[in-house]
């Protein structure tokens, strides 16, 4: 697996080493290329500190971090040449227009003078702000500023995009727009690392995720890998939809190996098993008499709240 980010025992202590605040406590993280990696954790869990170290805004107390093959401390300029960052609580020069802001930032990104304006207009178009290119940023709504924030990330056409709490403070419509933009960028082959404290966002757009708490990574991997330990402990759930008014025979389902619970309510049957019986269940409902009454069979994903509680050592 080719990695975009790899950290090894990252520690960050604010203040003195012996008496300071430990924001990161030995973070080892692997972010695969071309995925959408969600960094989930509550406020103060160390997400922003970790991101700041990755782009060279902060120095780690110990440990190492490689971003796109470059050392985040020694080669931070090279890292920033290739990584686009949307920091939390970012801002723009309000007295300047969106285009002026982007042309200025493009100049710092090393884009040649004759390309800056063209590139700025391209990214404004990509985020749907081209018609507001010459409007002052002070006239922008929060959602528009957010889109402008994404535009500034795209200026240098980075291999890796890092978004720190990107949907905080924007309305649901703006958040949905953002998520579809992330999906589009990921389809174009970009690697995306996104921190969030909103669980549902992880489930909605991430291919991989890490749960961070108290400066430690509690669990990381692909979404399936995160589900598996939960399911192994709590069981696998499946939902069978039946035609309205049908009487579903449940006996054969109950006899399947490791099935612990079968509950029917109206046109829905929920099956819980101690192991993955998706294949067996599918074979069963494909046969008569089930075939005639079953409309769909879906494995049920656990909610992210349950997953989070599970990795916290809770319920």
């Amino acid at each position, binding site marked *: 697996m080719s990695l975009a980010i790899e950290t090894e025992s990252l520690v960050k202590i604010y203040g003195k080493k012996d008496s300071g605040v430990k924001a990161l406590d030995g973070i080892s993280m692997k972010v695969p290329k071309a995925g959408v990696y969600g960094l989930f954790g509550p406020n103060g869990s160390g997400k*922003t*500190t970790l991101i*700041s170290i990755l*782009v060279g*805004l*902060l*120095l780690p107390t110990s440990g190492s971090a490689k971003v796109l093959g470059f050392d985040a401390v020694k080669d931070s*300029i*090279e890292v*920033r*040449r290739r*990584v*686009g*960052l949307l*920091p939390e*609580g*970012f*801002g*723009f*020069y*309000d*007295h300047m227009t969106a285009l002026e802001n982007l042309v*200025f*930032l493009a*100049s*710092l*990104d*090393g884009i040649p003078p004759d390309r800056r304006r063209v590139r700025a207009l391209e990214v404004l178009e990509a985020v749907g702000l081209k018609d507001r290119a010459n409007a002052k940023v002070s006239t922008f709504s929060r959602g528009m500023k957010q889109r402008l924030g994404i535009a*500034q990330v795209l200026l240098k056409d980075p291999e890796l995009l890092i978004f720190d709490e990107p949907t905080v403070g924007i309305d649901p419509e703006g958040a949905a727009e953002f998520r579809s933009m992330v999906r589009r960028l990921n389809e174009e082959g970009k690697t995306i690392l996104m921190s969030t404290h909103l669980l549902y966002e992880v489930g909605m757009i991430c291919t991989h995720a890490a749960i961070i708490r108290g400066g430690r990574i509690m669990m990381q991997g692909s979404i399936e890998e995160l589900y598996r330990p939960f399911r192994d402990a709590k069981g696998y759930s499946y939902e069978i939809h039946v035609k309205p008014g049908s009487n579903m025979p449940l006996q054969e389902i109950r006899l399947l190996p490791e099935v612990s619970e079968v509950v029917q309510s109206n046109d829905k049957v929920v099956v819980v098993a101690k192991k993955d019986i998706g294949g067996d269940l599918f074979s069963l409902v494909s046969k008569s008499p089930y075939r005639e009454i079953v409309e769909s069979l879906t494995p049920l994903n656990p909610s992210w709240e349950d997953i989070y509680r599970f990795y916290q050592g809770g319920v």
Partner: protein
Amino acid sequence: MVNALLIAHKEFTDMITSKRLWLIVGLFLLLSVASTYATSFGFRIAGLRVARPMLTIASNLSSTMSYMAPILGVALAFDAISGERERGTLRILLSRPIFREDVINGKIISALVVIGLTITASSLVSISVSILLHNVTVSVDDISRICLFIVFSIVFSFAYYALSLFISTLFSRSSYSLISGIGIWIFFAFILPIASSLVATVLLGPPPTIPLFNRTQGGQFGNMSLPESYVSYYRKVSEISSAIQTVSINHHYSQIVNPLFGAAISIGPAGSRVERTLDVPTIISSHAIDLIVLIIFPIIFLVASYMVFTRRQEK
């Protein structure tokens, strides 16, 4: 260096289009022309002739400058770094492939240019208006004194810029930085001179009493002589006050600028006043220490700003 110049260019544009700068320039021109006009009007009412009217005009300008130059320096610097932090633009800037030094270098270069242009242009406009109003002739010596005054004033204003920039690197809120900058200016310009005299009089005790009139032979008021004890007392007060004020950049600026346009007044052995206009080389050689302090002061604060800003980590 290219990145520093890019930032300097943007900062320069921001500064010269800011209302803040034009307000200071307008106030400076208004005060300097008004004070020159008032002085000249006063002389005419009293029927006095001034030997070198150009120096009187410039002297008024210097007293206005002693207040406006620090304000200009503080106004340009108080939000230089803290404002970027507050707006969230610093993180956007630092996420580009640039060095932190580029940001502070760009700010300093642009400020130096703006301070230089503002003080030179304001001084020249003010002097030109006064010359036209009073129809005075200007000698080569006058021009050399005015040029030196402009250079010293630029350094003086830049000293306050450097001090305020240092404060701005320390704070995350511009309001704190502004209050601190203005507070230091008030302390140096108003509080310290009064406090230093007060300390001197407390240390030396009350002044010796003198007779109301002490006419010399011939009844000339102009040749009044003061008792030696009285002269000695006030010489000591002046020495102590001066010693205390050596911590003030305003004091060193006044020490070197005042002799350029005013008659040097010394007290003779018998307490008589000796007045003479010093030539420029004498002024510079006799106030070399003041000149050195005027130059070293901004250097110290620029170095301190560098150290704080480049070492401070931005989360």
